[in-house]
């Protein structure tokens, strides 16, 4: 028994301490080194973070170089598959492009309106500057989903900077070095995204499932029924982790485990270039003006007086405007009355002309009939059946085409 224990101790001691001729360090030393580094890397000393940053810079660059052959094989395979489906995809894409062009115009209008409203609410506007970044390392670890991009603190990238693939959200920066940064992808288990889902405007949190999709969690039970298949999820901006209104993905209710999943718009395995959005807050003119006024009128009485005088000024201004409008309206009424008089006179004149014209027509008819029927209506001495010329009876007889009334 004692012998076997001795053997065990000898074997352990040998494994830990015995150093062969070619080895520079014993394994025990290296274990201590490892533990020391783990502890040290969690301390926020500047020297440590600089050293960590340097190591990571070197490692990322080396990893990029070492990955070139593998990436070449992968991209060649993808290109080959793309060429086989080229024509079909071209047709579909063309149709989509036409539709998107029309939608883009209305989107731009909404965007500008949205910006204006935001600046009024928040008192500042964000000027975003999207910079293009290359993905230098995208090795998918089975446990963690992250990529390395070739932009770092040198280009004003900060922890939390939002990263996009076109206009779709990809993730956020979780580690910044001088010339590169690590981006935590939305599919990672540690990624939490506050989203709004339309239709229904349901608020939820999307958590990466560690594979290719996201899973909707932290939602009220009664709101689950409001979520529709293919509904659109976009960032709600809650918690200020992500900006609001960025498209994330579509709802997928077809999961076997009855989980509500999100199909992300972007394929995170195919990322070559991404956009990093660098935000700067610019105070609006309204905000600065308000700030100045507050500084001058520090006491409340002064503020009240200012408000009353402002109100008075507004009332006076509006009163003057009303008076001016009234004057203008009076002048307009007079002018209109004059026009009515003129039009009345014109109307009378035209009526007279029409009446005269009717009389002339009647006279003309009489003369025409007179030529034909005068012999029938004139009085004769022997047979006194007619009428004397010029009498109304004579005219009546002519108008009745020579028929004498009883």
């Amino acid at each position, binding site marked *: 028994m004692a012998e076997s224990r001795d*053997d*065990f101790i*000898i*074997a*352990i001691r*040998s*494994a*830990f301490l*015995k150093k*062969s001729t*070619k*080895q*520079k*360090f014993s*394994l025990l030393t*290296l*274990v201590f*080194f*490892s*533990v*020391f*580094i*783990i502890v*040290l*890397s*969690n301390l926020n000393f500047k020297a440590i973070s600089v050293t*960590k940053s340097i*190591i*990571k810079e070197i*490692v*990322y660059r*080396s*990893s990029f170089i*070492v*990955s070139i052959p*593998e990436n070449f094989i*992968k991209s060649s395979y993808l290109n080959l598959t793309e060429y086989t489906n080229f024509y079909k995809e071209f047709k579909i894409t063309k149709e989509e492009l036409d539709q998107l062009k029309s939608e883009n115009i209305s989107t731009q209008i909404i965007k500008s309106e949205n910006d204006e409203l935001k600046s009024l609410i928040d008192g500042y506007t964000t000027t975003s500057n999207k910079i293009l970044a290359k993905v230098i*390392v995208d*090795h*998918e*670890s*089975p*446990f*963690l989903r*992250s990529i390395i991009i070739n932009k770092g603190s040198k280009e004003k990238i900060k922890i939390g900077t939002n990263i996009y693939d076109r206009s779709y959200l990809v993730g956020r920066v*979780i*580690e910044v070095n001088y010339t590169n940064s*690590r981006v935590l992808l939305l599919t990672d*288990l*540690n990624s939490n995204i506050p989203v709004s889902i339309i239709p229904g405007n349901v608020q939820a949190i999307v958590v990466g499932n*560690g*594979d290719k999709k996201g899973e909707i969690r932290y939602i009220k039970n009664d709101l689950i029924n409001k979520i529709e298949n293919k509904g659109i999820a976009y960032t709600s901006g809650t918690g200020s982790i992500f900006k609001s209104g960025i498209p994330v993905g579509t709802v997928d209710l077809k999961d076997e485990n009855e989980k509500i999943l999100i199909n992300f718009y972007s394929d995170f*395995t195919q990322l070559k270039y991404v956009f990093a959005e660098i935000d700067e807050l610019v105070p609006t003119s309204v905000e600065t003006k308000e700030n100045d006024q507050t500084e001058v009128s520090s006491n409340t009485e002064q503020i009240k007086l200012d408000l009353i005088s402002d109100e008075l000024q507004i009332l006076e201004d509006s009163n003057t405007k009303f008076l001016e409008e009234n004057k203008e309206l009076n002048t307009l009424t007079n002018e209109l009355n004059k026009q009515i008089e003129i039009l009345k006179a014109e109307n009378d004149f035209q009526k007279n002309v029409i009446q005269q014209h009717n009389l002339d027509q009647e006279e003309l008819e009489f003369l025409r009939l007179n030529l034909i029927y005068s012999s029938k209506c004139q009085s004769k001495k022997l047979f006194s059946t007619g009428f004397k010329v010029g009498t109304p009876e004579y005219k009546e007889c002519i108008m009745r085409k020579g028929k004498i009334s009883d």
Partner: protein
Amino acid sequence: MIRFQKKNLLYKVYTWLPILALFISVFNEFDLNYLNIDYFSFNFPFILIFYFALKAYQKFDYFLVFLAGLFNDAVVGLPLGISSLSYILICIFATYLRNITISPNLIKDWFYFLFIISLINSINFSVLFLFFSYELDITLFIVNNFFTFLFYIIFSIFFKRYLKSLDD
């Protein structure tokens, strides 16, 4: 069979092949998980380190293994030192097995390897979950552990041939 002239540069590179393979695999994260098979992945460095530490291959410097661990942490995004500790622990267990074994047996080594990687993955998972608050899927760890165990037997055949070619 290709035979190298000893003291030739190519021969020297050939003798350093395990270390080179280790560094390439940590830089490149060689685990075939881009095949898009659900949950499929395996840990090639674990297999390589265990095998060559067990065989006490002279060019297999533990300090370089330690460095490879640091690089792996930087590439994957784990806290620095975690993989180094795992790799060194594998070396320790492999050395212990070598010391207590009189007649080596591949199947025994294989199951011992399963025990070792399970233990080390458990330590990794616990440290990351408890001390660093990482959200991790335990299924991925278990599947990774299982495939690493399965692939050991395949790779050990290649490694054996490699060592034999050096002896010749």
